[in-house]
């Protein structure tokens, strides 16, 4: 782990989430898969951080480990996941449930797998808020704010005035009736459906997932994740299943949401086009290791790790034609028997005698630019 001075921390902006030397393995009947081997990065407040790499590099496992959602055959071998200083890996099941409820939200690749097909869209966005009393005070305040805004525009109707009186009369922590809770939750759900630009939200509220297109379902997932106002949003390949024109709509939405929401975002993707479109910084992963971390412009202009260089050179670009395409020889290694030393060395065009023996540490070679390679 690198030791950073106070001044450095200041410059980098406060980290919401710090992942430190995270190691995870899976037990399978073929052997132990060493999926994460010392993953280390920070998520700064308000940023969109890209987590990129090819399939099997550990991007999704990293996200699942952060949310405590790893499958039963996974074991966290070591490391820390610090959310504002609190280690999520040490939390009990109930504490983790609370964390996922209030602080860390997920959006996954395929909305149909995560949306309940027999509940209407609106009611399942609202359900999250009704499911736990922790949202009660917040919902009351939210509604009171809304009524105050109405009032500043003009007089309240009699019903609205009565509602406000009733809500104000409630002491903090006093239980709302289920009916009132439901109404408040639904009104906030509708609000977030507007935030994610679902067309005709009042009508869509009552619709079922199968009636929506892929892009609309993904918007529903985003609304469901944001309605709890999380500190961290983990977005795992959220545009991969969408067509390019719909992907462009969702990327535009994410760009518009920045500034409107408090959440810092980890965007997991294999598509470097998507990354360069919306991320501030990028973490490049290979075979369970972080190999490079840099600002987006720096990474594309000046990639240091041979894997990053190979990856950038091998993406076909829509804006230029190349007669012969570059590629990285070989394929992604089997993580039951990962290569010794640097896990990239068997495919690396720049390897030298020390590479198979020494695991390169992640070092900061320039302010904000870290790389794990013995060349630097």
């Amino acid at each position: 782990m690198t030791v950073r001075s106070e001044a450095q921390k200041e410059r980098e902006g406060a980290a919401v989430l710090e992942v430190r030397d995270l190691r995870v393995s899976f037990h399978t009947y073929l052997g132990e898969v060493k999926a994460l081997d010392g993953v280390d990065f920070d998520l700064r407040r308000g940023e969109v951080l890209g987590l990129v790499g090819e399939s099997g590099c550990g991007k999704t496992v990293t996200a699942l480990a952060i949310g405590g959602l790893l499958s039963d055959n996974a074991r966290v071998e070591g490391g820390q996941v610090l959310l504002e200083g609190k280690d999520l890996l040490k939390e009990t099941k109930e504490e983790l449930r609370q964390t996922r409820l209030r602080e860390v939200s997920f959006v996954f690749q395929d909305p149909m797998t995560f949306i309940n097909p027999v509940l209407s869209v609106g009611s399942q966005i609202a359900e999250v808020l009704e499911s736990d009393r922790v949202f009660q005070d917040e919902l009351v305040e939210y509604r009171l704010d809304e009524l105050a805004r109405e009032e500043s525009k003009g007089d309240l109707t009699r019903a609205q005035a009565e509602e406000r009186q009733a809500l104000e009369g409630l002491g903090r922590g006093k239980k709302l009736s289920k009916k009132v809770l439901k109404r408040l939750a639904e009104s906030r759900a509708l609000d977030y459906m507007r935030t994610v630009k679902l067309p005709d939200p009042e009508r869509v509220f009552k619709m079922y997932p199968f009636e929506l297109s892929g892009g609309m379902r993904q918007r529903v997932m985003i609304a469901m994740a944001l309605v709890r106002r999380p500190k961290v949003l983990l977005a795992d390949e959220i545009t991969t299943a969408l067509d390019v024109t719909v992907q462009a709509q969702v990327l535009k939405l994410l760009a518009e949401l920045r500034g409107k929401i408090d959440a810092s975002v980890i965007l997991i993707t294999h598509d470097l086009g998507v990354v360069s479109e919306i991320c501030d910084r990028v973490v490049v992963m290979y075979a369970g290791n972080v190999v490079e971390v840099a600002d987006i412009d720096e990474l594309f202009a000046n990639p240091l790790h041979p894997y990053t260089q190979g990856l950038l050179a091998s993406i076909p670009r829509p804006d230029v034609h190349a007669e012969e395409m570059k590629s990285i020889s070989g394929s992604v290694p089997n993580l039951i028997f990962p290569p010794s030393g640097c896990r990239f060395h068997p495919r690396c065009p720049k390897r030298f005698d020390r590479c198979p023996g020494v695991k390169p540490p992640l070092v900061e070679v320039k302010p904000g630019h870290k790389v794990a390679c013995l060349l630097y």
Partner: protein
Amino acid sequence: MAENLLEVQDLRKWFPIKGGLLGRTSGFVKAVDGATLGVEKGETLGVVGESGCGKTTLGRTVLKLTQPTGGRILFDGRDITSLRGRKAKPLRRRMQIVFQDPYASLDPRQTVRSALTEPMKIHGLARSRKEADAKASELISKVGLNPDHLARYPHEFSGGQRQRIAVARALAVSPDFIVLDEPTSSLDVSVQSQILNLLKALQRELGLTYLFISHNLAVVRQVCQRIAVMYLGRVVEMAETEALFESPKHPYTRALLSSVPIPDPSRRKALAVLEGDVPSPVNIPPGCRFRQRCEFATERCSEVSPPMKEVRRGQTIECLYDIDFATKRKVELS
């Protein structure tokens, strides 16, 4: 202009929707609905479009893996539209396909040797087992693997290697024409370019003609000489690759191209966003199929189905207008 190896005229493939107790046909999914295109000998023609536009159905129909509902297919000058069964067999030797997912397209219980020699046996291309084995060794080396791999089963290979095997199997009968249906979509980028380079090298060496179906515009730009853009079952624009990317003429092509993110933050631009979704291929709106999402649509677009017109040499569109996207001025095409 080179001669067309494959010609598709007004091709239609409708799938009936059966419903209810009696299994009556209640409508049709018009997957391909009047597509016209030609593939020149020795070229790679790209077919691009979003999911549901009919590109895969088009590929399967020209190979006669499904019977077309209407239209004509000519292969090497011969009408093959209604060829079936035994009569189609000589044709099948000349036309092959490589599918998207090599995990599904290879039989898990068949060795690589058997997968490569079986098509030779069926078409009588090897006189003896020895000859077939020798051919298999040659094929496997051609796709960048080695003859030791012949005795293995598909599960022993990575995705990229499996796709090489699928390519070798297609080549086993020495075809002239191969439909490549999203051949690299299930592969990682670092491996994808290996396969694309292989396909290009094989084409040069063997004089193959490809129909390259893909949703990835960046890939298509690297491998195709010409491109057909499909929307809701029709080819809405066809042009040489550079002309299409540099100056698309159909509003849909333009929207499609500008919604692809470029992997280079120094060229970060606001992505042009096409609103709405693709209409259902069951209830296709009359007139131009794209008009509801088109910013240039006029009254006439809802009345007339635009015929295919040549706007520039070698560039045809199905649009009533020749639009200058910079100035937004449009000239009606006569």
